[in-house]
């Protein structure tokens, strides 16, 4: 087990190196010159050239890359070309809304999705099952910004039950924080609820027809014990896998949701950075989210061993 974790960390380093090269090249090879952006629309060529020199953009690309890697390993993610402040500081300022949204969305989609899926599998073809089929068609096919504006219209503008947009930091009160996050979480979560519920349903259906379920019934186990103890644990591995995958997809969804609900998170930081060709920010956010994704995958793989004793590394 320890050897496995070590091996995984070593391969993680290789993966991150590849990701790093890819991210770096992608941005350098894309059209658009950050020095020209900083200098302004009608700047003199000499000014642009001196800015390029200052930013080190004239050095050969391998040199720029090595410098970047060395800085990152030293914990220095660079300085925003545009804002002139350290990237890490900018990111940490924007971290809370994004993390709040992501975590609440995961909690919502796992709890609701798994329960929904179990109930649908328990009574296949029943009311819950048919509701799930209809719901997942909507959840899958309607994009976040449509659902988002729809929710805003009904629950904020028409009824005034919830705030339209914006974010209140956690330390200014749990209530206001939560109230502002309800609509974004629901808008972002619907698709994931559908996703998790479909996989849970399929996985549960497979397990429910297993011989050991009949053994459990022959023992006199209740429906509750059959579903939640005997079946769910066996159905857990695929469910855990989609939760891991969902987390990766979530990163894309967060950007849209932050825009719709005007949340000052990482997503909007990145969108602005892309518009401004603010390389250090784009690179840092990409490398950090890739790292997070790799770690989540590792965590999911390790969590399998807690669910299924047959899986050993």
């Amino acid at each position, binding site marked *: 087990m320890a050897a496995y974790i070590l091996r995984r960390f070593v391969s993680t380093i290789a993966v991150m190196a590849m990701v790093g090269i890819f991210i770096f090249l992608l941005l350098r090879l894309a059209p658009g010159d950050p020095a020209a952006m900083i200098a302004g629309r009608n700047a003199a060529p000499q000014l642009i050239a001196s800015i390029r020199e200052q930013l080190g953009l004239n050095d050969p690309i391998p040199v720029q890359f090595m410098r970047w890697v060395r800085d990152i390993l030293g914990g220095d993610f660079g300085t925003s070309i545009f804002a002139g402040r350290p990237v890490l500081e900018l990111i940490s300022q924007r971290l809370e809304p994004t993390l709040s949204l992501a975590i609440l969305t995961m909690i919502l989609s796992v709890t609701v999705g798994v329960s929904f899926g179990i109930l649908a599998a328990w009574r*296949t073809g029943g009311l819950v099952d048919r509701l799930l089929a209809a719901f997942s068609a909507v959840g899958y096919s309607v994009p976040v910004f449509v659902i988002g504006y729809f929710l805003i219209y009904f629950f904020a503008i028409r009824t005034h039950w919830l705030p339209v947009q914006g974010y209140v930091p956690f330390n200014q009160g749990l209530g206001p924080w939560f109230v502002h996050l309800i609509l974004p979480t629901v808008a972002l979560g619907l698709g994931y609820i559908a996703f998790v519920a479909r996989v849970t349903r399929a996985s549960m259906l497979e397990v429910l027809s*297993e*011989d*050991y379920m*009949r*053994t*459990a*019934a*022959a*023992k*006199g*186990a*209740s429906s509750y*014990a059959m579903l939640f103890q*005997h079946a769910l*644990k*066996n159905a857990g591995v695929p469910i855990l896998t989609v939760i891991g995958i969902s987390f990766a997809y979530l990163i894309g969804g967060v950007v849209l949701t932050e825009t719709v609900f005007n949340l000052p998170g990482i997503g909007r930081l990145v969108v602005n950075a892309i518009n401004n060709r603010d390389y250090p920010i784009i690179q840092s956010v990409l490398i950090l989210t890739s790292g997070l994704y790799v770690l989540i995958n590792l965590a999911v793989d390790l969590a399998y061993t807690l*669910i*299924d*004793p*047959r899986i050993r590394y």
Partner: protein
Amino acid sequence: MQMHQTARNDVLLELRDLETRFYGEESVTRALDGISFQVMKGETLGVVGESGCGKSVTALSILRLLPKVSARIVGGEVRFHGCNLLELSDREMRKIRGDQIAMIFQEPMTSLNPVYTIGHQIAEAVQIHTKASRSVAKAKAEEMLRLVRIADPERRVSNYPHEMSGGMRQRAMIAMALACSPELLIADEPTTALDVTIQAQILRLIVDLKERTGTAVMFITHDLGVVAETCQRVIVMYAGRIVEQATINDLFASPAHPYTQGLMRSMPDPRRGRQRRLPEIPGIVPSLRDPIVGCSFAPRCPFAIDICREKTPVLRDVRAGHTAACWRAEEVMGA
């Protein structure tokens, strides 16, 4: 459970005209077509027949474990201590399953839950039916493993099914089934999936435990040899019906149904030396989707005459304690 005083106190389980059907997309299968028999307290009853004759369906019907969507019991009664199990609520039925009637299954490889330890699964049966605490139930699990002669039970309780061999898993299944001292144990082909040497051990174990605990056993098998070793009375099933019922001695001495005779001839017999080829019963089991006119065995039967193809024979006494559903039973016995 309400107890009715029956005329014969030694009857533990009585099936009366049990009819179970399976519903497919377009067809209905009459899996059980009027099954009636009794299991006495403490006896070992063998249920024999080919695959698909309704042996397992009978067992699952008794415990009401048939798949809800596709199967239904459409008629008859299952009286346990005189009380009709088919009329009980789901909750009342759960109290009987695993406590008064327990069951072991054919496939020890797939019949245990792979994500829980053996000890946990045995203890669960105890905890469902008694108020035993976790630790008491765990101790009971260990005791049961010792009872089914698993070596090193202290260690084995915390094993997962995949860490055990097929024979050991079947022992664990038996331990689980007997944990609440049931009055009836239904064993559905418990040795079919095992190696021959392990088969004999498991059979021996079931017979021993049965003698020690006084549990009645309903032994379902396709193997007449197993029946001969374990049972006192036998029921022979064919195409969803009982075709013969007798004590083990009567059945082997003078089978009264041509199907039973065919089954016996197709058993290898070492005394006869090496045969060129075992005789087999010609033809195939009829489809249970179409209504059967006459005797269901008639198309394969060497004794069949006109009446066999026209009228369905009912079970009748051919002598004391020996019944058969054959128009020509007397001639068959003499043959």
